[in-house]
């Protein structure tokens, strides 16, 4: 039992933090949210150069061939920095699906896409049947789409899209019309069930990881504001009512973190309980983030309710990601079902 990250994993996070501190400031995020595409190609290129985009891509496709334990801190960092680019969708969702799906044409598909993804030259979006709109569809070159128990890989040119506006400016969802064809089929039957199930688990863990970072940023911003904002002649952070809001948010985050990290480890190691662990991670992280958002708004007061103040950028991420890939009550119900279904505890 050694429940800690190694120095390289921590160092990789520091490198990503150095990059986002410089090129993913709140002003940069606003620019991305206001832009046509919703993200910055130059930042994406910098992430590719760092090796982040190819982290889960196998080495023979020019990736680093690493796992989710290596990735999880970077996803958390994406949340902390408010990174508008689809890091989670690329590294934790799309790449493993392309990497692991078998069937006809799998090898060509891997050769066509994985190296390009690692290089930052191709972007992939993922849409399941239950999604009202596919996040990031408009900026994707390839879409992995579920319909009727099958999973298809459809090039963007073969789809018709209707962009939907959304609260979280990083999400960029679109309704996607498309026709399945034998050439687009990625997985069907039992294969598709397996691919979709592990996709859902990685998505639960991955959104959980991003939400940890979102919660962390909301708490840090709010603590700083509570020190600086003076009312009744003293910083509002000296009032116990405010202290307790902040302490509660920090405690929820503190106890969500190890659950998310454990989930990454379980998925990497094929732990038989990995699904339950992923649901637990998402349930805890979603509550930590939405709780932090609620707290951040209340402590900031009216200024937090404005578009002008930066706190909204992270609150909106918290709300959209908490609902994505199953919200907290859904995952709690799943945890209970899995335990009770297993016939023991």
């Amino acid at each position, binding site marked *: 039992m050694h429940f800690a990250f190694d120095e390289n994993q921590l160092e990789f996070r520091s490198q990503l933090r150095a990059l986002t501190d410089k090129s993913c400031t709140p002003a940069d995020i606003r620019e991305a949210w206001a832009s046509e595409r919703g993200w910055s190609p130059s930042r994406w290129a910098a992430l590719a150069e760092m090796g982040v985009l190819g982290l889960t891509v196998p080495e023979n496709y020019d990736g680093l061939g690493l796992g989710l334990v290596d990735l999880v801190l970077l996803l958390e960092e994406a949340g902390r920095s408010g990174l508008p680019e689809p890091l989670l969708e690329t590294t934790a969702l799309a790449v493993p699906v392309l990497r692991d799906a078998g069937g006809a044409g799998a090898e060509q598909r891997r050769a066509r896409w994985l190296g390009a993804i690692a290089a930052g030259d191709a972007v992939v979006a993922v849409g399941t049947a239950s999604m009202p709109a596919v996040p990031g569809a408009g900026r994707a070159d390839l879409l992995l789409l579920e319909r009727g128990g099958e999973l298809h890989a459809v090039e963007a040119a073969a789809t018709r899209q209707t962009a939907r506006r959304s609260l979280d400016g990083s999400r960029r969802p679109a309704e996607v019309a498309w026709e399945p064809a034998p050439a687009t089929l990625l997985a069907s039957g039992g294969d598709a069930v397996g691919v979709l199930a592990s996709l859902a688990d990685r998505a639960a863990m991955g959104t959980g990881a991003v939400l940890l970072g979102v919660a962390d940023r909301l708490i840090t911003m709010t603590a700083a504001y509570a020190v600086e904002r003076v009312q009744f002649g003293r910083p509002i*952070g000296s009032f116990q009512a405010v202290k307790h809001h*902040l302490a509660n948010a920090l405690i929820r985050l503190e106890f969500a973190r190890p659950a998310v990290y454990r989930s990454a*480890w379980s998925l990497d190691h094929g732990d038989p309980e990995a699904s339950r662990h992923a649901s637990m991670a998402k349930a805890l992280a979603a509550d930590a983030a939405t709780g932090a958002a609620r707290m951040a708004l209340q402590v900031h007061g009216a200024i937090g309710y404005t578009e002008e103040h930066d706190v909204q950028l992270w609150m909106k991420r918290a709300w959209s990601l908490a609902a994505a890939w199953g919200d907290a009550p859904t995952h709690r119900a799943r945890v209970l079902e899995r335990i009770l279904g297993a016939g023991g505890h």
Partner: protein
Amino acid sequence: MEWDSIVAEYLAVCQIRRAMDLLFTDAQDEFRHQVRRWLEANVPSEARGTGPLRSLDTAEGFEAHRLWERTMYDARWSVVSWPAEFGGRGVGLMEWLIFEEEYYRAAAPTRVSQNGIFLLAPTLFEFGTPEQQARFLPSMASGEVIWCQGWSEPDAGSDLAGIRSRAERAGGSAGADASASGGWVLNGQKTWCSRGAFAHWLFGLFRTDPAAQKHRGLTYFLVPMDAPGVTVRPIAQLDGETGFAEVFFEDVSVPENQVLGTVDQGWSVAMATAGSERGLSLRSPARYTEAAGRLLSLYRQRAERDPVAARRVADAVARAVIDAEAYKLHTYWTATRVLDGGSVGPEASMNKVFWSETDLAIYEAALALLGEEAELFGADGHPSSWLDGFLFALAGPIYAGTNEIQRNVVAERVLGLPRV
């Protein structure tokens, strides 16, 4: 390229890194089996006609629990993490957590010696003289001497540094030179002393320098409860049993060698104990994961009988189960940090809030499942284990420093918010 070199370096060091590993070693698994085998053969049980033991807050139950401590001590299982010379096995933090998991899994008796072995002992190891360690630790480990805490006073609860019970140099001289070896005289009153009704010794803080500022001028004393001038008044708790007591001190003589640590430095000595209480040692996660397991069994039973009524409580059950497991994971996370040379500071206050609320959430969910049945006592005239656990859990957010105080500590010392 800058990034290329970083990535190359990263990959090179990957070969020698110590990877995250959430499995126990073979040696740890073997230790677990050893613990399990011994507990299975020895834990008092109905089947063997040796249990369950009466509540340790009754005179009869207290003695039965002491006997159990003696049985464990004789087999060197009572304090596994202590050095062998004091009756332990010198095992590490992970092994202690494994021991605790097995202890709760076996539904073994509540540790009547817990105030001593979990709270005073870490302080004795850190501040005690070799003579004090040899004198107090073995009898604590064997259950021969049961300790209670003397922190709170009627006017010093959350504001603990407001302690007024005092200790004066014997002979009435304030000068250290005249009577330095003559010991001390204690006067005052302590309250909410858990196990106080039956305990043999008390550890606590007394004011030795009335002129000093609140947190200064306190000294940590070890006092036998049968010393002349000590009066104990048991207090019936919410569950009707005398789990705690008021203790009165009237001209109680205490020799110099029963001062723990430095005179007037008792606050920092005591805070080391408080850290243990809030942090890892008092509330090991197995306590909650086992209770969560029983909650799941209860849920399953109820759901078979009345699925609609059970489903009403499903989310609360899931929450409690998830939080218990989150506490366990957090403990392994923290234990790894400690074993890697880190320390636990004010973050221990987050632990205390989390375990106490998790405990309560488990029992609240159970009572919600039981509905009107919850408050009915059993045929034996005692509350059910759920009701009993609920009543006990209610104390959690209050003892060991109220959760409001802990939240202040988190806000001020972890998040850096201003004190005033």
